[in-house]
């Protein structure tokens, strides 16, 4: 028989205001096995834990139940408390009477009754708990970063500086991400390349960092500390060890009609290309779909002009298998497609562009060499209209419900830069709200209005109509003056909502990391564990977790690195002891369980057993505790009921069911 102590937490008034904690204590005392029950203001506090410790000693407790907040919050706290006072940590169960009770019910009697039942279920369970010993697993001291934008680069640099090896996998031919496409950056207006390029160079030159560009993660197996990852290094058709980066091939390549991804399709690139001049590595790739040699067998110009003999048409994709202790996702974002926004005439007029396209237009290395001009006729615009929140904060299914967070600031930036360089151009911004929280952000926006005379109008644009004379008619409602506006513009810029890179879904599935309804990766706790995914060993960096600007991205990237470093600094990790365990007298070696185990943790071996005095050899299931993750799939599939899960055994779960239905 267990000797159980029950500890009911008030959580200040979070629990005690809706649940009669004294009543819960009183009812708990009547449950089988309970030898002690008490309540306290804050069980998780030092004094609360000392109370638990004292009771363990005084009453010789063999198990405890804490009626408190979610076990996802404080299970580890109370387990280590138990351990400190000499009790096996797996003899602790939590009754969640806060998130699952006091916070969602108003009626005191109802909530108290429910809390009593939840306590009862936990007591019934702990009566059947057995002490468990956590095992150990090794830690591979190398990290993988998926995505080589500013987030991935910063995380990799920070981890590498701490002395650990890091690999970056980037799907495009160069690292740099969106930031490499930006012209100038708020709130300081320094040039994006000037602050990004040195970081890219640092990463490429770091002895601890290996960069796989034009590569993708194909398969992930294993678990925290010991992941095995297959990386597909796509065939570049150029031998990186020979290429000198001279660029002759790109110049001479006769296939020059492929829309440049880097310039958002506003200019063309050759079939053999590096996305931009400062690309890292400065080694081109052949786009085999555009290459004449690959399409027709003729051409071969690049091979002829390459002095270094680096062109290799026969190159194949390569699969690299590597082990990692931790994985950081930094896959960033893209802007949403505007197909469903016909009212802005994005697909009808070349002079309606997205803000990211404007970044390329304003950039000296962009399609217009940095001249502000209309893409339809090359004329200098006189009247520019910006429309904010295109697809952001959108109530209907066409767009996104969330705020993309960066658009208010970059629109102010664009407006200011245009007014600065072209003082005779009128700039009008239509907005729903201007949101500028952040250091020096509001000051930045006010400068746009006060110093640069940007015309901000609170209102939504209903329609942008291309006119026969080539201009654009913008129809909008001015919400402050309550009037309709019709104005002509030469150019319209859409602050388009951002969304996670579409590949993140596949990445999340491979990592069993969760994503929310908008495809942003979910953090382990929205406030307290913002850079960890709920999956152990997987961390989040940058916009893949939620919209962010560069300062926030870099801060989060550093935070993710710290978490990785903390993990890699350990030599061993303790493993979850709640693993499957077959009863050798019941197992008949049928082989069902191994079939459902996602981790290949079950094998069969022939062993001598003693079944009620009869000695015989039998084929029996054996679970490898280092591989078993404790899902329980095998326990349900086992026809003889031999397989059980420690910590969540059949008897324990049935005891909970019984307690609830009593």
């Amino acid at each position, binding site marked *: 028989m267990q000797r159980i102590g029950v500890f009911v937490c008030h959580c200040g008034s979070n629990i005690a205001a809706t649940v009669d904690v004294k009543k819960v204590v009183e009812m708990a005392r009547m449950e089988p096995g309970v030898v002690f029950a008490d309540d306290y203001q804050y069980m998780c506090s030092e004094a609360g834990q000392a109370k638990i410790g004292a009771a363990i000693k005084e009453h010789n407790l063999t198990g405890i139940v804490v009626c408190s907040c979610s076990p996802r919050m404080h299970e580890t706290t109370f387990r280590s408390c138990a351990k400190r006072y000499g009790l096996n940590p797996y003899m602790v169960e939590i009754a*969640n009477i806060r998130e699952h009770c006091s916070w969602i019910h108003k009626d005191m009697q109802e909530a108290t009754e429910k809390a009593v039942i*939840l306590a009862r279920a936990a007591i019934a369970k702990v009566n059947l708990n057995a002490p468990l010993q956590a095992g150990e697993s090794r830690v591979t001291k190398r990290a993988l970063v998926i995505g080589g934008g500013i987030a991935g680069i910063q995380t990799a640099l920070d981890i590498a500086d701490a002395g650990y090896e890091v690999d970056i996998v980037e799907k495009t031919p160069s690292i740099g991400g969106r930031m490499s496409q930006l012209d100038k950056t708020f709130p300081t207006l320094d040039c994006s390349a000037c602050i990004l390029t040195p970081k890219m160079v640092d990463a490429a030159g770091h002895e601890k960092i290996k960069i796989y560009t034009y590569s993708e993660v194909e398969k992930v197996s294993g678990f925290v500390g010991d992941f095995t990852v297959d990386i597909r290094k796509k065939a570049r058709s150029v031998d990186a060890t020979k290429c000198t980066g001279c660029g002759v091939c790109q110049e001479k390549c006769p296939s020059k009609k492929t829309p440049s991804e880097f310039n958002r399709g506003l200019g063309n690139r050759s079939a053999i290309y590096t996305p931009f001049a400062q690309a890292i590595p400065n080694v081109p790739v052949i786009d085999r779909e555009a290459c004449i040699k690959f399409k027709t067998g003729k051409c071969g110009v690049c091979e002829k002009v390459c002095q270094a003999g680096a062109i290799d048409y026969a190159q194949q994709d390569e699969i690299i298998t590597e082990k990692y202790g931790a994985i950081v996702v930094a896959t960033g974002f893209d802007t949403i497609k505007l197909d469903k926004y016909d009212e802005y005439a994005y697909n009808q007029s070349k002079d309606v562009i997205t803000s990211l396209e404007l970044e390329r237009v304003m950039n000296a290395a962009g399609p217009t060499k940095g001249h502000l001009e209309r893409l339809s006729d090359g004329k200098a615009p006189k009247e520019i209209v910006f429309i904010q929140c295109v697809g952001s904060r959108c109530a209907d299914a066409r767009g996104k419900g969330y705020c993309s967070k960066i658009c208010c600031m970059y629109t102010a930036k664009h407006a200011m830069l245009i007014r600065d360089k072209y003082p005779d151009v009128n700039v009008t911004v239509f907005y729903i709200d201007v949101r500028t929280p952040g250091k020096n952000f509001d000051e930045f926006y006010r400068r746009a209005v006060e110093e640069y005379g940007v015309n901000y109008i609170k209102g939504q644009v209903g329609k942008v109509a291309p006119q026969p004379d080539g201009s654009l008619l913008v129809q909008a409602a001015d919400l402050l003056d309550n009037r309709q506006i019709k104005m002509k513009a030469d150019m319209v810029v859409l602050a388009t909502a951002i969304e996670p890179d579409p590949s993140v879904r596949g990445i999340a599935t491979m990592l069993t990391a969760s994503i929310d309804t908008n495809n942003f990766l979910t953090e382990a706790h929205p406030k307290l564990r913002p850079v960890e995914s709920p999956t152990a060993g997987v961390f989040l960096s940058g916009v893949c977790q939620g919209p962010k600007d560069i300062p926030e991205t870099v801060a989060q990237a550093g935070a993710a690195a710290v978490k990785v470093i903390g993990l890699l600094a350990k030599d061993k990790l303790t493993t979850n002891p709640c693993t499957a365990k077959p009863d050798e007298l019941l197992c008949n070696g049928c082989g069902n369980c191994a079939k459902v185990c996602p981790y290949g943790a079950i094998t069969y071996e022939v062993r001598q057993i003693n079944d009620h005095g009869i000695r015989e050899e039998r084929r029996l299931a054996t679970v490898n505790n280092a591989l078993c993750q404790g899902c329980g799939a095998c326990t349900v599939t086992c026809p003889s009921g031999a397989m059980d899960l420690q910590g969540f055994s059949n008897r324990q779960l049935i005891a909970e069911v019984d307690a609830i239905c009593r």
Partner: protein
Amino acid sequence: MSVNEEFRPKIVAFCCNWCSYAGADLAGSSRLAYPADVKIIRVPCSCRVNPMFILRAFEKGADGVILCGCHPGDCHYSTGNYYTRRRMTMLFSMLDFIGVENGRTRVEWVSAAEGVKFSTTMNDFVAKIRSLGKNVRLGDLRCKD
């Protein structure tokens, strides 16, 4: 339906630790109410729920059982919820056959971010059970006294 207003059903909700239990926690921290009739049991994965547990619940007088897991493709253990889906399809049709109507059993996918979905699901499920009324307790007629 005043009778059913009074009727407080016994409802067991199995929630997987990684998604649905966290979804229930989020419903809690967002103060999204649902009836106190729902009592949650935490399991590592939805695939840990043995059909026996559900039969047991009905045998002990439950009026409804709901099983929540991660969305297909999102199971923390990759494939657990696919087993759940197949097992429960079988179990629920058998239960329906022996008199526990389909409305009393449900499988629902709720992610850690879906506090709202958790609460609306529970509200909806409880309303359904209340409209169905008290369940006939599963048992063996031969053992009746």
